[in-house]
């Protein structure tokens, strides 16, 4: 796989807002849209087998939801879904880079910068950590 549009989808308002843009880009470049959900557990807590499975379960539901949203935008779009077994930033960046994606699309968290800084804004980190072009879509107010 290469040249795809990778879209991080976690069901948030920002991610929902990003879907139409991801679909438009995928259609414009005539490549598949890869919907990705990243989940990883803190290794400090020890073994995470069950937690990983439960989180993947959540991810599955979100990916179904995201795929349905994307098809609503334009049924012609070709969709792949990926569960990424890593923390969101390293996972999405890793997936986009390793699959040589054309562009990585993520939703903004819509928080002010202070909360974003305190909680570690994912879109901000992604923006600065990859050579893949990144599109950040903020949720509507």
């Amino acid at each position, binding site marked *: 796989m290469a040249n795809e549009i990778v879209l991080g989808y976690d069901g948030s308002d920002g991610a929902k807002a990003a879907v139409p843009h991801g679909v438009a880009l995928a259609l414009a470049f005539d490549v598949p849209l890869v919907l990705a959900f990243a989940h990883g*557990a803190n*290794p400090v807590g020890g*073994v995470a*087998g069950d937690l990983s499975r439960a989180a993947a379960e*959540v991810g599955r539901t979100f990916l*179904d939801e995201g795929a349905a949203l994307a098809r609503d935008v334009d049924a012609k779009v070709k969709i792949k879904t990926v569960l990424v*077994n890593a923390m969101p930033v390293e996972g999405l960046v890793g997936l986009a880079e*390793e699959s040589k994606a054309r562009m990585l699309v993520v939703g903004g968290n819509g928080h002010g910068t202070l909360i974003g800084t305190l*909680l570690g804004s994912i879109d901000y980190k992604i923006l600065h950590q990859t050579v893949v072009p990144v599109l950040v879509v903020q949720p509507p107010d």
Partner: protein
Amino acid sequence: MVRFPRAEPGGEDVATSGGTTAPAQTSDGGDRLAVDKGLKVGAIGLVSAVVIGVASTAPGYSLAASLGGVTAAAGSQAPAIMLVAFIPMLFIAASYYYLNRADPDCGTTFTWATRAMGPKTGWIGGWGIIMADLVVMPSLAAITGSYLFLLFDANSLADNKWWVMVVGLIFIFLMTLVCVIGIELNARMQFFLLSAEVTVLLIFSVVALYKVLNGDIGGSVDPTWDWINPFKISSTTALADGLVVAIFLYWGWDTAVTVNEETKDPSRTPGRAAVISTLVLVATYVIVAIAAQSVQGADFLTKNAADVLSATGSLVLNSPFDKLLIIAVLTSAAASTQTTILPAARSELSMAAHKAAPSWYGKVSPKFLTPTNATWFFGFVSMAWFAVLTAVSNDVLGASILSVGLMIAFYYGLTGYVCVIYYRKHIFKSVRNFFFVGVAPLLGALSLTYIFVKATSDYWKDTASFGEIFGIGLAAAVGIGLLLLGIPLMIIWWIKAPAFFRRGRDPHPHPAPDGTGAVVPPILDAGPIRDADLDAGGKNGDEPITWTPGGSNGE
């Protein structure tokens, strides 16, 4: 390595089995995407593995909490106890390592004991883990409360247990929130904090020993080789009571071993990480114990058990450098609280996922991807428990450290027996097996059983140190009482939801310790717990690919 296919809803198996990599079905050459087995593989390097192991053990906090307890039991031989205590820990870590290869489930002892000895033993093992985590929380909170006051020279507040309780409760609440949201320090920050912690402890030790040997501190005691000689320990009572406290010092070290599945080079990294973190811990504990004891003798540490590093630190390091030691203890306590709450919540999640507890505990927040119900529940019970213990005991810290030692001895010991029983048909197949899944776990389990029985009987009679309940010493009453409380709760759950208790032990053949030879069956045939609300969303036929950084699935 053979692993059982995870039961996924809808019947699809995402996991691999038989060591093959299921080809990822993508239209244009999806060979880059390997289906994995539900664990993060290729995520952790050697340095991170060591950091995780040492941070989970939290040397700064562990010393602050238990040094006084060890000297109380063993006097001047405290450093020798530190040395000896590592041996059962090392043996039990072998059990963790090999059982984890059979089933890397976050229920750990709960899951493994269920497989090897049946659901009732497994349930009590899981209960033991959660209770150990619960019982240590008052100590974490009390240390944080008093050291925080000491940091700002509010010494009278640090001695007031009610003020310490207020700060401690706020601390538990905040740390629970951190675990619920899933905030985690990045690897570099963790590495920095941990290095700072160990460096400060070593600076303290070097300066203390230098000053003591120079005669700069009045009342100091020159260290002798007898301090680290285990054969000079005065009695079996001193040994057992010292060890039950000292086990606590190494508690959490097993994490260094069990994250092995997730390391970059699973055949070498875990072993090396275990060896390095061992050396770091044993060296730190022995050196700090010798140094602290030389400052004013062992009795001084016993008398100042509640703030032992602060009391000795202020005699050794000039202001404001003595505050560094306090900060090191505080960051260590915060890290340790996280490594207490996370596994406790994950054990609850695991029990719920296998229907050994109400499914409510298994709910994972779609936003934070953490077991939110289990985490909050554990946080609030800890707060209640801390408040109750503060009201009952004169010395919350001392009583909780002693009883947590009992809990750890209980479930670590059980894990040792579980390893021997689970792999019993493989023990005599090779010399390596014989020692690593036979002799070592059994010796670890037997010594922990001895420590558990001996310390319980000693604490039972000791009504003076920490107060008493019904004429039983508080530490024994808490330790044994909480373990026994599990039995009625288990029976209630057995009556309400008998499915879990109907499963027997895992049928043979079990996989070999190296993970080959047999497929591990699921605990129950049911799929993982899902939020009923999320369940409603229909599938549209797109089964997602699972992708893990690093490309391979590490087989």
